[in-house]
């Protein structure tokens, strides 16, 4: 079995454990490369069907190309899609024009997520986070409980081993299920390449720049790159020493910004 086969089989195992353990699952979808890999793996886990809805937290600062991709892929994969905007925060004038990126990210992503969880009473979210993205994500579990305030108790996490997970939740709590935890950025690209998985074109270089990680347009910067194909991207990643989320402003707004965001419910 190759390395990618091992990762794929482990992810499918996790998807199926989640489907058994929880009554009301949703899978957040940013249309980014990782969440498109998640869709692919879910199809594999459930014989070509995805038995739960996808969830797009629309910050209203989405790149138009991403929305175009969303609408195309929803049809292509026959997805059940829930779109959620934190209308209340937008009405209060929360936006990148007037507020700092940590505040906006918290309001338009984390709070929007809390709202949609409460509305639909989801007890589990399947997320595409990976351990190699960030040092706080490195400490995650495959099944990671969040309390009713959405807080992550990263100092006192339940143990997890032998393919057994935390699956019980009290009302209002939910569990983050993270099938891509062991994958790396390069793994994701090799898997996309191997299976020909559709992704937005913004990942590929145009005019000497490409997006390595995609978020809200006002705070997402492209990197210098001439990588126009997946082969180019993989070659580029072999030599780069820049971190994947370097172009994501909310991570770097203040010291420990990512940790603070994540403790309050950010993915």
């Amino acid at each position, binding site marked *: *079995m190759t390395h990618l086969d091992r990762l794929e089989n482990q992810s499918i195992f996790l998807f199926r454990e989640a489907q058994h353990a929880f009554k009301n699952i949703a899978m957040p979808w940013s249309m980014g490369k990782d969440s498109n890999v998640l869709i692919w793996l879910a199809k594999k886990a459930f014989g070509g069907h995805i038995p739960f809805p996808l969830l797009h937290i629309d910050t209203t600062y989405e790149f138009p190309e991403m929305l175009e991709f969303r609408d195309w892929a929803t049809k292509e994969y026959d997805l059940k899609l829930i779109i959620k905007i934190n209308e209340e925060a937008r009405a209060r004038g929360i936006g990148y024009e007037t507020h700092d990126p940590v505040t906006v990210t918290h309001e338009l992503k984390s709070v929007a997520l809390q709202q949609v969880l409460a509305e639909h009473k989801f007890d589990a979210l399947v997320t595409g986070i990976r351990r190699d993205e960030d040092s706080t994500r490195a400490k995650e579990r495959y099944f990671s409980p969040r309390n009713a305030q959405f807080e992550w108790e990263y100092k006192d996490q339940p143990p997890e081993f032998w393919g057994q997970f935390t699956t019980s939740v009290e009302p209002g709590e939910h569990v983050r299920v993270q099938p891509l935890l062991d994958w790396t950025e390069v793994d994701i690209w090799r898997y996309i390449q191997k299976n020909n998985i559709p992704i937005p074109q913004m990942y590929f270089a145009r005019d000497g720049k490409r997006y390595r990680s995609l978020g809200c347009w006002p705070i997402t910067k492209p990197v210098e790159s001439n990588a126009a194909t997946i082969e180019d991207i993989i070659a580029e990643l072999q030599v780069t020493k820049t971190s994947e989320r370097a172009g994501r402003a909310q991570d770097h707004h203040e*010291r420990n910004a990512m940790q603070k965001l994540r403790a309050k419910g950010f993915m």
Partner: protein
Amino acid sequence: MHAPLPARTEPQEDAQRLKIVIVGHVDHGKSTLIGRLLFDTHSLPDGKIEQIQKACAAEGMDFEYAFLLDALLEEQEQNITIDTTQIQFRTAARNYVIVDAPGHKEFLKNMITGAASADAAIVLLDAREGLQEQTRRHGYLLSLLGVKQVLVAVNKMDLVDFSQETFNQLEHDYRAFLKPYDIDPLAFVPMSAKHGHNIVKPSDKMPWFSGATLLTALDHLQQPPAPIDRPLRFIVQDIYRFDERRLIAGRIESGQFKVGDEIVFSPDRKRSKIKSIETWPAEPRQTEAFAGQSVAITLEEQIFVERGHIGSHLDHGPVEGRSFSARVFWLHDEPLLVGQTYTLKLATQQVEARLAKVDRLMDSATLAPLNESRSSIGRNEVAELVWQARHPLAFDNSDVIQETGRFIVVQDGRIGGGGVIFGAQYEPAANAVRSAHISWTDDPVSREARIDHFGHRGAVIWLTGLSGSGKTTLAVALQSRLFRKGIAVTLLDGDNLRHGLCSDLGFSDADRSENIRRAAEAARLLAESGLVVITSLISPFAKDRQNAAAISRKAGIPFAEVYVSTPIAVCEERDPKSLYKKARAGEIPGFTGIDSPYEPPVNPVLELRTDLMSKEQSLEHLLRLAEQIAHRDSMPGEELAGFSI
């Protein structure tokens, strides 16, 4: 200060990634070693070192390699690695993931979480301090967790003047300690993480050492192969019917199968041939599958298969049994108690099992067997225990098939500890399951024999309350939950009784009393045969319910009165059978709550307001009550405390 290394060369594209865990006593230098490995293999992102150096300067601290890891603020404050974290680095040979597991005793659960998934382990030892509590404990745990490839790094050699004698003594002592646990370290490396001796480059301070440096020793490790050559164990995760197919989804833990193979599903031992292996996308068609693969299959015959079943070939099946011995490590604050029933999860099986006895307890510091007799296992202790499950399950000895030879124990909805099974007999154990039925022969069947057979005693749970209060909904759900937990359970429903056993009775007060008496006698008979009986009857009169309780208790059967006390306004609003509407219209005379009284219980063991609690919450209370009342060690007639809410 550091000699530059040749530029990084890249590992082969599909080179395996090796997951290594670094364990050992707190302060023996793990974080420093990892920081060093990252630095020396050029595996840090640009700016990381500068960032940490700046942070150190801001806090007035000297730079240390350990800080490269401790990206979280709390860790820098405490100087302890709180949770396992995973770090990638690469050498010319391959990619590595380092699991940094905390050495502090407080964080054993995190060390286990990290180590359980590792392909290999480095045990770090401080040359000055030698074998400490965690050095021993972690060595033993690596053996329980099944990590076979172990390297021992003897750190801080600079602080013992690079003494060969000290190193040799440590190697001798630790090998002797690990030998009984079947761990044979592949190498001992004398080194200094802080100063970079024998990490990447051989040390000029220890010319007496001719072995490989730590990195070279790592590069010589192998990825443990998937157990393809072992007997087949296909663990069933779920059955899917998303389309016209009935897919049996699961993972092959060991062995392999192909389309056409005959498979037996344990513990029920139903057999069928594999019709197909279903994939998405459907092409190319898959005809065989191997250990490590998550697959979905269809079967030739429509046999009963469910989550928890283990598929195997006809020969070399797993053990089936209710009793087994296991080495258990306990991680939860609440101690593990002899006589208590716990939920165990083994592969995808979930069973209720009683901790029957402690066979052997180990001293937590030295791991030497203790002679004291104990009825509880505290946090971070290890012991050999005997478990008695409520119903048969399929399992292996962990030295035969690791993946189906180990289980976790649930405490308060979390993983409380883990155990690995040993000493089970493959053939005789299967016979033992069959012999459990021998008690149904010529001899009179004693109550004790029935309790042994079912794993619990018979009991009556009497649900009373108005029409529409939720009795039957709860009774049906309770029955289903108990049944799935392996408890022999049945339901006596008022409506059904009136169609048969009590079809000659009307609704006069006298007939109502007789109706309850017959129900109570039937419940007693069934409970005497070993079943947990749930009744769902309005039973409006206190006198009749007292009589029902007396019938059971006289026969030595525990009886629990549960009052489903949903207010009449709510019941009438629900009115599932439109009975209230008819009663109000005068079509049903003598309807309880309308023109016939309901006498609420004065002292029920449990009262449930289904209008205030979710069905799930009510069920939780009922399940706890049922577990207590039907527990084999419960005393019939004993007061049930703590259930009024």
